[in-house]
Every structure is written in C-alpha cells, then in structure tokens.
C-alpha cells in the first residue's frame, strides 16, 4: 500500500508576515512534485513544514491519515534532504560522505558501503568514490548530495532549489539524478525556479502569495 502524506489547512507566519495560507496538499508515495514560485514565496517554509523540521502555526500534517507532530525519528524515516548549498565533509571521500547517511541510520559499515557505491553509481559518480569531496565540481557535489539522500531509501527526497547555483547543463544532470535515477518507490518534492526541471516532475504546483495552485 502506497504512503500518503497530507497537509491539512496549514498556515504559517513569521511574526506578522503570513507566508502560507490554509494550504491543503496530498503527496502519494513515489510521486515527483515540483513547487515553483518567486523567491520569498515560502517554498523553503513549505518544505520545512512538510519535512517535519518546522511546526506550522496552524493546521496539521498527516501520514497515512494519522496526525503527526514534530518527531525526529519519523522525519528521518520519511525524508532525506538536498539543499541549495552543498554540504559535504570536504576532506572525506565521496563514498564516505554517502555511507555516513546510511551509518547514521544504524546500517552496518559493510552494507552502508555497498549501498553508498550503488547510490553513487545511480548518480554517475562511482568513478569518483575514493576522491575527497573537495576535489569535486559544484555539479558533482550536488549529485553527491543526491546520492547521500537516496542511499537510505526515504519515502521522499525534499530538494530545496538543488540547482539554484548551477549552470543549465549541470542542472540537468542533477535533475536527472533526482528524478530519473532515483530508486523505485522514492518520491521527490523539488522547490525550484527552473521550469524545465519542474516539467520533468509528475505534478507541478505554484506557490504565490501563500497559496498553492496547480500549473
């Protein structure tokens, strides 16, 4: 049975500034959703609430119909993140960076290493496994972050403007890694300005003035 995550009447404000207005959203396991919108429209806030990093001012989040609060264990079980700014352990190898995510979920070192190799292979970085992260280019680093996100087979990868700092050619490689190369059953939610990437997703929503609308 497929996983369903729902936002019900979610509102969020920073002091007096209302960012999200009574949003309703339903995500099916394995689907790829793009959220587009101008800077400051609340895409990151939406992803943070969806990813259980930020509790909404009002409204609720349901997983398979059950209301959930901010729970780190559930957050880690459901989601992995890819951020606009690449964050890696620069001096550690690509393989170690990816395996770290699996090790942090209690996987044995041997299995973590195998899974990490597989994830690096998916994003086309297997040949760079033993290179320190700092020697990789920006696009390669972002693909490394995608590999680190998918290695633990989360329900959803939440990607917050993952190609925001990349050129068009590199962006398409990262998008390919996030969408086409992701393992079966892993869903993706991408907050992006890039229409091409958005069009590669199963569904595209626009966030404007705190309201979500289909595109």
């Amino acid at each position, binding site marked *: 049975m497929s996983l369903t995550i729902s936002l019900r009447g979610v509102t969020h404000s920073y002091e007096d500034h209302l960012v999200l207005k009574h949003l309703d959203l339903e995500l099916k396991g394995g689907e790829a959703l793009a959220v587009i919108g101008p800077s400051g429209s609340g895409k*990151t806030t939406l992803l*943070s609430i969806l990813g259980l*990093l930020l509790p909404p001012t009002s409204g609720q989040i349901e997983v398979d119909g059950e209301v959930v609060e901010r729970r*780190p*264990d559930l957050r*880690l079980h459901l989601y992995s*993140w890819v*951020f*606009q*700014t690449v*964050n*890696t*352990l620069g*001096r*550690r190898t690509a393989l*170690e960076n990816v395996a*770290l*995510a699996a*090790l*942090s*979920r*209690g996987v044995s*070192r041997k299995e973590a290493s195998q899974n990490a190799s597989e994830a690096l292979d998916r994003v086309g970085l297997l040949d760079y496994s033993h290179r*320190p992260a700092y020697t990789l280019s920006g696009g390669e680093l972002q693909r490394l972050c995608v590999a*680190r996100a998918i290695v633990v087979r989360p329900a959803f990868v939440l990607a*917050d403007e993952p190609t925001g700092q990349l050129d068009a050619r590199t962006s398409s490689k990262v998008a390919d890694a996030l969408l086409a190369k992701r393992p079966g059953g892993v869903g993706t939610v991408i907050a992006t300005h890039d229409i091409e990437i958005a069009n590669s997703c199963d569904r595209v929503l626009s966030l404007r003035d705190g309201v979500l609308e289909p595109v």
Partner: protein
Amino acid sequence: MTGLSPFETVREAVHNAAAARVRLAIQIVAWTVMLGGIVIAELTFSQDLLAFNELLDQAGRRVLIVAPTEGGELPASTCAGLGSESWVQNAGGRSPPEFTTLLVSGPLRFQSARITVGLLPVLDPASEVARATLVLGKTAADELGLRPGVPIHMAQRPPISLGGVIDTSVRNEAAGRWIFEVTPPVGSVSECWVEVEPWALDDARGLVEAAFPAISVAARPLIDVNQFTRDPVVELAKRPQRQAWIVIGSVFGFMGLLSGWFRRAESGLYAVLGNGRRHLLVMSQVETLLVAYISIPSSILWSVVWVGWTGGIPSADLLLLGTRTAVLAAAMGAIIAPLGALAIPLKDIAALLKDRG
C-alpha cells in the same frame, strides 16, 4: 534510536581528524607550543625552589623529635611501631648518651647510645646499614681509621665487629663521634625521632603526639624553618606560574569553541543525517583528546630539550611538576573545547546547512 552507533561515532571522529591532517597538525603544534611554554616556565622558575626544598628535606625538615615533657622515657616499641604508619617514612628511638671506652692503641672515651634500627635512616638518609649491632659515626670512624667489618674492642666487653658507619653530619653533627648500639625495640628510649612523609608534614606534630596517648609528650622539629627567610613549600604553593594551566586551558577551550563555530555547517550536516548533540559532543571530545594525547608528551619533550640546552637537565621532581601542569592545562582544554558542539543551535537545521561559516 537515530544517529551513529557509539563505535561509529568515535571512528567518524578519528577519520575526520585523519582526513584534515593540516588542521590536526596546526592544533597539535599550537597545543605543543603553549603547553611547552608553561612546562618551561615551571622547569625554569621552580628549579631553585625545588632544589632549596630538597636541601631542607636533606637537613631534616620533616624530622620531629618526640620527648616526654615531664622527664621520664618513652616506650621503645611505640616509637619503633610508628615506622609502619602510612604517614611515617622512618622512626626510631635512642637512649640517653653514655660514655664507652674504646681500646684503640690506648683507651679512648666516646659517647654512645642505644638506638632502635629505624633511627639509622633518620640520622643518615643515605645509610645502607639495615641491621647491625654496632654502628659508628663517620667522624669517629675516619679519625680512628675504622671501617665496617673490623673488630672493635671496648672496655669490659668482648670484641665485636663494626656493623656499619653512618654520616650524621647533616642532621646531627655531634653524633658523628658517637657509638651506636642497635638494639631491639624493647624497654624505653629517651627520644623518638620520626621522619614523616611530605604530604603529612602539616599534621605531623599532632599525629606524632597522639601516638603516645599515655604520656605527655612534645614534638619539636629537628630544624626550624622559621629561621630561614624563605620557605620553599610556601613559595611553591604561591608561585605565579602555578595557575598558568588555567590560562592555557582556557585558551585551548576558546580555540575549541571557535573551531566548533567555524565547523557549524559540518555539525548541521551530521544533525540532518540524524545525529544529535550527544554525537557531536563525543566526536569533538575524541578529536580534542587526540590532540591532547600527542601534545602532552611532545610539549614535555621539547621543553626538556630547551631547558637542557639553555640550563641543565631538570630533576625528576621538576619534570613531575611540569607534567602535572601540562596535563591540567590539557585536561581543562579537553573539557571546554568540545562544548562548542553543544553551543550550536540545531533547531533550524536548514539555516545551519546554508551557513557556510
């Protein structure tokens, strides 16, 4: 349960340290230089104090002479028994001096005393005479040309072999011409000499007097340190560099906190992968301990080389003092430095990851 296992947490820290060799090397060099600095300060400025302290110890600053306050004598067994107390180094008694005639190319009168065996190392700390029936002061032995093993002829007594010679010139110059008859601790003695352990010096007088509950006794020190203008123990306790470890330890701690701040994006990464403050604290602690373990011996080594090159080889006591200071500073740094990992707000992980420090 989320995050790395304890074993993997430690392993992660070691791998992080090994991967960032330049950072590790800079930390080790900085720690070594600063620790070495305070060790050198200890070795240089405490040298004369320790030497003076050693001189006073040799002179008998830790020796107390116990005698009855109203005449009479002390039980020899109680006096000798003090030697087995943990706070006593050596203890032994002696009878009042008498006169004994030695037949050495003619009769010569010498002062003599019966002593228990524990008094020998109190009178002469370098003495190797462990058990003998007749011992001679070094001055008398030198003047008469006597050495251990030669037969001694005393008036109205059978000849006896000289068991040993002790040098009392430092602690009791007059006894250099005495003849000591070492007897078992039975009967009574007129004085009990007790040398206490260094750590028991402050309480020694009370402890010694309490050891003779049935008799009113008074304990007086063999030498009165008040006659000197300097007291090395007090000076050591008040030396300015004694608190340098707090300063250096704080500097290490501050360096650690600063490093934690600059590495906050790394902390955010570990956090987003499911590791909490506990993991960050352990990793930071392991990295700091690695630096400390390498820095302590290397700082002591280079400070000994430095002091040896500029002055002389430091004594074992001095090295111990320097090592203690270095370890204290390193321990303080190792406790404070990892707290940087706790100071990082993990609530807004996304913001932390975007923050490149």
